């Protein structure tokens, strides 16, 4: 069987799994994708060969470090077959990684499936706006692309052009407050639920611009926030941000839901707090506790040995994402996580080895003038 034929087979199997068919277990699919990638990715084959234990379970699958995405092409197919290319922002490391996709349908289905479960609070149509810059063409931001997908899907009126300033409410002057108010008014008039998709730094920028004033949205509105601050604004503790946003918009804190995603992943995690959402109905979640979709599993591992830590212990997240069929089924992040009842708690990024004396720390190297310029490529990204 050719590489692409096998890939297509796996894509179909994963999409069926996401749709609820369980012909294969998560572990079986993960190990099948691992074997496929090992056969067609020399880099992944070398990584697997470096492990002394045979790969017999999900816990054994080595994670491809996120750094690999900025140093090499982490795909099994040639560039000519790319249908989407997403670039990392690189704001913390100075360099930019690229995640290319050959098959977009799986990405779309998985993102929409779990996005609907986490964000849609009722059966009504939603009006969706993004506190993000206008999406570029072709999209280079995985987050922007996902936001655009949600706009089309959640409004339930068929395909339409989402690239209008009314939808993307960040411009050169910052957040378009009047645009957000107009979106709220429109949702009220039409009896729709307003969904605001936002980065954390956009929300902080808005709060700062409002200087304590309210910007009341319809009471049923839902806000999805994602991403860190990346030095773009002051940082605010998640609980404080949630409370401030809820107060400013006049909505319940539970209607502010955090998403965790990465350019290097196909799938996303969400808090299960939105009242009326499928995710919340399944098992009500606490703020700060992220729920994995059935086709993604986070394995907290020891930062030095990369072995799984005991349940409840803090480790760095190795993420096994069945959607990453043509790239890397397991990603090794530096994000600290702890498994708790009902999901995972994110504890922030593990700090690199701090500078000791005059030896150059890796973070310093990556952000040094000249080095950063040399390594930075590609378009804009919000993640």
């Amino acid at each position: 069987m050719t590489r692409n034929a096998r890939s297509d087979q796996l894509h179909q199997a994963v999409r069926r799994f996401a749709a609820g068919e369980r012909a294969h277990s998560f572990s079986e699919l993960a190990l099948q994708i691992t074997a496929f990638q090992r056969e067609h990715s020399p880099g992944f084959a070398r990584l697997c060969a470096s492990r002394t234990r045979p790969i017999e379970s999900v816990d054994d699958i080595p994670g491809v470090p996120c750094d690999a995405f900025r140093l090499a092409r982490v795909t099994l197919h040639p560039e000519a077959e790319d249908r989407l290319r997403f670039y990392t922002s690189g704001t913390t490391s100075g360099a930019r990684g690229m995640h290319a996709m050959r098959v977009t349908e799986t990405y779309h289905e998985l993102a929409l499936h779990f996005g609907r479960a986490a964000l849609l609070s009722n059966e009504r149509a939603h009006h969706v706006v993004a506190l993000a810059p206008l999406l570029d063409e072709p999209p280079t931001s995985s987050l922007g692309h996902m936001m655009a997908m949600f706009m089309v899907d959640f409004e339930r009126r068929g395909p339409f052009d989402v690239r209008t300033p009314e939808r993307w409410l960040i411009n050169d002057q910052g957040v378009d407050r009047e645009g957000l108010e107009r979106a709220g008014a429109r949702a009220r008039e039409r009896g729709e639920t307003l969904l605001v998709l936002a980065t954390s730094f956009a929300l902080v920028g808005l709060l700062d611009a409002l200087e304590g004033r309210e910007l009341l949205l319809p009471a049923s509105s839902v806000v999805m926030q994602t991403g860190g601050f990346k030095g773009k604004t002051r940082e605010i503790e998640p609980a404080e941000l949630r409370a401030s946003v809820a107060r400013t918009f006049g909505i319940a804190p539970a209607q502010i839901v955090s998403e965790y995603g990465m350019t290097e992943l196909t799938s996303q995690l969400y808090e299960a707090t939105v009242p009326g959402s499928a995710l919340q109905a399944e098992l009500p979640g606490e703020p700060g506790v992220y729920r994995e979709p059935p086709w993604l599993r986070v394995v907290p591992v020891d930062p030095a040995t990369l072995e799984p830590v005991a349940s409840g212990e803090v480790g760095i997240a190795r993420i096994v994402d069945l959607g990453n069929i043509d790239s890397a089924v397991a990603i090794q992040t530096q994000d600290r996580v702890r498994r708790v009842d009902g999901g995972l708690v994110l504890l922030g990024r593990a700090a690199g080895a701090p500078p000791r004396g005059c030896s150059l720390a890796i973070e310093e190297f990556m952000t040094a003038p000249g080095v950063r310029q040399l390594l930075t490529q590609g378009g804009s990204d919000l993640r």
Partner: protein
Amino acid sequence: MSDSEFEARRARLEPLFESARSLADPSTERGRHARARLSASSGLSPQGVDFAIARCLEIAASDLEIAALIRSTPTSEVAHVLLSANVFVAAHRAIAIALASSAQVRVRPSRREPEMAELLLAGAPGAFQIVPELSPRAGDRLWAYGSDETMDEVAVTLPPGVALHAHGSGFGVAVIDGPHSDAALTPLLTALAEDIALFDQRGCLSPRLLLVNGEPGFAIELARELALELGKLEQRIPRGQLTAPELSEIAKYRDTAHFTGEVFEGGLGFVTVGQAGAWLLPPTGRNIHVLPSANVVASLLPYRPLLTSCAFEGNAELRQALRRALPGARVCRFGEMQRPPFDGPVDLRNA
């Protein structure tokens, strides 16, 4: 500078030199005591401490080097020294520069590694002062060593009129130009392994990258041989203790390198090989990334502000080109990266 002034400054250095000489002698109680204290504070293995003292503590500087150090050092009312951790021998050179500048020298050691300054002072009582905090005034000079973050903090807190000589973060590179015979390569790689192993690579002179002007296959061959040399050296001079964040950085680096190229184990460290242009700065702890490069000068130029030392083996023309392109780095022979001439600060970035 008059002869008498030169002699006065030279005389101020002598007690420090004598203290370093006595400390370097492992057969004396003082030498043994120093090794025990430095092992405990530096994280290096006892053999690593002994190796660092034997190879890098400048107890045999030539008169020419010392004269150059004195003549290139500006005078000051009071000379202040802020020391960094890790490369404990650096205290000796730093204090010598300060003594060449002023009869009044105040030293604030690193909180993580206060031992070396105290050991030097014990052998040269009164030559300088150790102070818990520095408080320079107008007309004074401050020589500060450490991370760029520390340098930034120092720069914004200095009162007006204080001259700052900031020596921030950096790293070293090694360059091999063209193919060499096995007989010629082995001593080069042995020497490079020693440059890497000194201070477990925590210093700003430590090589972290090896650029090879040659075919990718030659770079892989060199990496394999270098790993063997590092393995041999590990037997003789074991790596010391690394911190949990350092071990985590190494795990990430190793796996990234597995994905992007070749990885060879060299003792407890790794020699990795990447594709031309794919820079990967290895973490400290005896790791080095090897890259083929058809134009080493162009490859290094973007990193110029960070480069402190460049070991070179190859033709004289390229050596000169590297000297011109990297004025802040000491271009030297393999095995000499960690012991630059005792003629001033270890690197030339502020020269």
